[in-house]
């Protein structure tokens, strides 16, 4: 049994075991060694959870994503994926098969002109037999709702559709974790909704751990847990509503709660009794009760 399977088997036991464990990690790029992009980060990601990683540009969140799958290796400290240390080269492909990274620009992630060929790229790389590749490609495209485009080219698709294909390309490797590294940043609101819906469904239905890296606060509301990074350090973490409750702390690093939460917070401050809400609809209902 590989250590990956062991962790997966262990996940049924009552003790929660992390799929990603970041311990005292610091990092700087070779081009600018004096500037620590990440400083002494400690973080655990648990199996099956939806984690949102928030922060400004330059907060180190994208660097962290590349550390997760071993594209970058920590300067000091350790990152363990299913107990495998990313610093060892022999773990490289075991880790990458299990941590799928989706990047910001969908155009720069596709290798071929035919969509199904592109989805097959990952499984082809790791030498999966042909019949299984076909099955996986079908499954992955179905999971992101793009089966109808299998034989087409990505040129005419919308940003959201292209990004869903990029997710399918990662999904075809059957990863346990998917990291969306600012994958919604270049999309229009509709494309963002599409991609987020796919991510949520993968977490719910396929049990895939999702790490959503974003600077859109409202996207974090759909997460189970939020980690806020600032200047390379973990600034806050907790359930989305807990984190957004503390608007003062967020304002200090020039972030803010999503408008719905912000309004709710202010009404509470004014003494109104309002239940926790996530969406405008829910807030409207609460307001209706007050009147």
């Amino acid at each position, binding site marked *: 049994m590989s250590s990956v399977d062991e962790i997966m088997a262990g996940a049924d036991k009552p003790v929660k075991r992390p799929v990603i464990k970041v311990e005292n990690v610091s990092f700087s790029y070779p081009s600018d060694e004096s500037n620590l992009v990440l400083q002494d980060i400690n973080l655990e990601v648990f199996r099956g959870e939806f984690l949102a990683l928030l922060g400004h540009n330059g907060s180190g969140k994208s660097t962290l994503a590349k550390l997760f799958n071993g594209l970058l290796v920590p300067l000091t400290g350790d990152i363990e994926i299913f107990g495998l240390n990313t610093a060892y080269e022999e773990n490289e492909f075991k880790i*990458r*098969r299990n941590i799928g*990274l989706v990047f910001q620009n969908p155009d720069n992630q596709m290798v071929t*002109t035919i969509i199904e060929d592109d989805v097959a790229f990952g499984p*082809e790389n790791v030498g999966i037999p042909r019949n299984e590749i076909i099955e996986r490609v079908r499954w992955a495209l179905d999971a992101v709702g793009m089966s109808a485009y299998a034989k087409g080219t990505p040129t005419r698709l919308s940003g959201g559709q292209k990004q869903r294909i990029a997710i399918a390309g990662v999904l075809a490797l059957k990863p346990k974790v998917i990291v969306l590294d600012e994958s919604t940043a270049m999309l229009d609101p509709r494309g963002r909704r599409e991609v987020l819906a796919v991510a949520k469904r993968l977490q719910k239905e396929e049990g895939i751990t999702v790490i959503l890296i974003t600077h859109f606060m409202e996207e974090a509301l759909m997460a189970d847990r939020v980690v806020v990074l600032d200047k390379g350090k973990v600034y806050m973490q907790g359930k989305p509503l807990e984190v957004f409750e503390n608007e003062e702390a967020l304002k200090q690093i020039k972030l803010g709660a999503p408008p719905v939460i912000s309004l709710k917070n202010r009404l509470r401050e004014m003494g109104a009794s309002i239940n926790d809400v996530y969406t405008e609809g829910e807030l409207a209902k609460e307001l209706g009760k007050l009147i």
Partner: protein
Amino acid sequence: MREMTFGQYYPAESVIHKLDPRLKIVLTLAYIVTIFFVNNFLAFGVVFIFLLSLVFLSSVPIRMILKAVRPIMYIIIFTAILNLFWGVDGTRVWNWWFITIYREALFNTALLMLRLMFLVMGPALLTLTTTPMDLTDGIERLLSPLKVVRFPVHELALVMSIALRFIPILMEETDKIIKAQKSRGANFDSGNIFKRAAALIPILIPLFVSAFRRAEELALAMDSRCYKGGKGRTRMKLLKFSLTDFLAVLGFIIFVLCIVAIRVHFMHIIPVH
């Protein structure tokens, strides 16, 4: 956005389109060699009928095939004229001042023109009926024996595939950059040739910068998807010879046999050389 079709693929669902790309490439090469064996009009008649039936089968409009000849029309005319005055003996047919045209030269020129035209029309049919992706795939598999001598066949094919993928993206980007520079007052359409060339610099530099950035991102994405070169890689697409492919080979063999038979037996019909 500019609609961009790379190469000149003509999408259709014909038997020719469905042929194995490897076979099409090999047969096209064989066709080119065969054309060089053709040295009389009867044989060119056979080539004409062969090509015409292929075009008919492929449902590609004939004008698309003829379009392939257009870019080399001047070369054909130039070589033809040169060739016409080259022959220095045989039967005189025309004489003016110091220019003499011989009957043999006339025949040779006609054959040369036909040969050049048929030479480009065959490969044109290949690119019209095969997607660039399939062509790349076919070339990769045909060259795969070279892996033994460590020729990077897979890498070469991947480079071609990525190039095909990014051509439309970079075209679109060039369009954007041109518009952006024009809106800041750049002028690309006036001045002498040096000024115009210099005007291209503000287009090329951002284009290169962006292309490099894209390349870096693509490399990261490929790494993340476990790319480690051609070793130990499997393929989803399987190229398999079908009945049509065998029929195509059979048809081609018959064609070559006709050409050879004509060359051997009927050479005296229209004597050349």
